[in-house]
């Protein structure tokens, strides 16, 4: 019966998906519960801040610069038709601070730092390092997972802010320096239109949520990976796919909550 078979396949996948979401939630709660130890020994978090934050700096800064430059160019082409080139600053800044900064930085973060986290933890599991730690009476969630989680949560808003800031300069460079939009109106209109609480703080909140989601997904996939080479590579791929989708879905939900109700 091919129909029954495909229904069964759908059912199996749905049950599996719900099951994994439950496991991931439990994993997240355990991470929070065992986080105290990580804060008492802050150097563990600092070490992870290096591998998640500092190592993502270059890709974030370069990508931010180019995204800002493209925004400047495209924005100018569009605004020129309505004779409002002076609003270029507004367009670049709002686009970056509200959407592109948090979202693109999080997508880059997922593929740079998230995949590395999954691979690292998956390999630790495959080479029995996690079992060894458990046998040494050290809780691996407290010692390995929690510091990485907090490093991710701290890095993400900072990276997104850097992305937006560099992007604004990219837009300034193309718009003002190269095309010759008036510098004064570029900045003043931007400042008049971008609200600190409404736009910048909401952007920070977004990147905070994305950082949490990406890190939890990456850590969970690594911790849950089958302890084989295929298992780890599959988990790494899943981290990038799942967290990218999660970022975009969460972005819609958050945008609707923040800006949609008016």
């Amino acid at each position, binding site marked *: 019966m091919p129909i029954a078979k495909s229904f069964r396949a759908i059912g199996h996948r749905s049950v599996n998906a719900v099951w994994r979401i439950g496991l991931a939630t439990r994993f997240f709660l355990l991470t929070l519960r065992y986080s105290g130890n990580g804060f008492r020994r802050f150097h563990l978090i600092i070490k992870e801040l290096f591998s998640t934050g500092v190592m993502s700096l270059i890709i974030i800064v370069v990508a931010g610069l180019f995204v800002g430059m493209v925004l400047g160019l495209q924005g100018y082409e569009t605004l020129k038709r309505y004779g409002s080139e002076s609003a270029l600053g507004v367009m670049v800044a709002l686009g970056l601070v509200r959407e592109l900064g948090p979202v693109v930085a999080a997508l880059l973060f997922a593929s740079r730092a998230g995949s590395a986290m999954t691979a690292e933890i998956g390999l630790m599991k495959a080479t029995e390092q996690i079992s060894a730690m458990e046998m040494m009476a050290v809780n691996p969630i407290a010692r390995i997972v929690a510091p990485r989680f907090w490093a991710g949560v701290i*890095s993400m808003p*900072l990276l997104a802010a850097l992305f937006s800031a560099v992007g604004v300069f990219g837009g300034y460079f193309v718009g003002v320096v190269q095309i010759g939009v008036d510098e004064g109106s570029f900045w003043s209109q931007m400042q008049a239109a971008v609200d*600190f609480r409404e736009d910048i703080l909401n952007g920070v909140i977004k990147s905070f949520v994305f950082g949490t989601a990406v890190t939890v997904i990456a850590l969970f996939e690594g911790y849950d990976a089958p302890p084989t080479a295929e298992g780890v590579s599959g988990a790494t791929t899943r981290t990038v796919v799942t967290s990218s989708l999660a970022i975009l879905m969460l972005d819609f939900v958050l945008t609707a909550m923040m800006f949609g109700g008016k």
Partner: protein
Amino acid sequence: MERTTLDLWVGIFVVAGIAALVMLAMKVGNLSTYNVSETYQVHAYFTNIGGLKPKASIKSAGVLVGRVTGITLDTQRYEAKVTMSLDKRYQFPKDTFANILTSGLLGEQYIGLMPGGDEEMLKDGEQLKKTQSAVVLEDLIGKFLYNKAAEPAK
């Protein structure tokens, strides 16, 4: 990696991130114009506010002097009641004229204040009596067409 180099890099990263946030807040956003200085509240009634929104700026002679804090419909008069908070540094005469203006053709709407000649100054909680509503584009076009139709054909 050496512990100190690690600390140094993480330090640079965190400082750069925070600097970016501050730069966004001050240079890109309007945190620098958020006046922590004291304000006083006044309100005014408009027959139509058009597209005016809370937090819209209030300017006098082009200078930002305050922000719209609330917009409600007064069901006694069926007019829009707009409350504004103005910077204490800027005092206005009692007969100041409040005008809803648009910055540019498609820009945001804001309130322009034109000071009158009264000796007495506005106090906290008082009302701006003289107002002019927003120009609604549809009305303008309607009027224009009506006038056109009324013109004798050449």
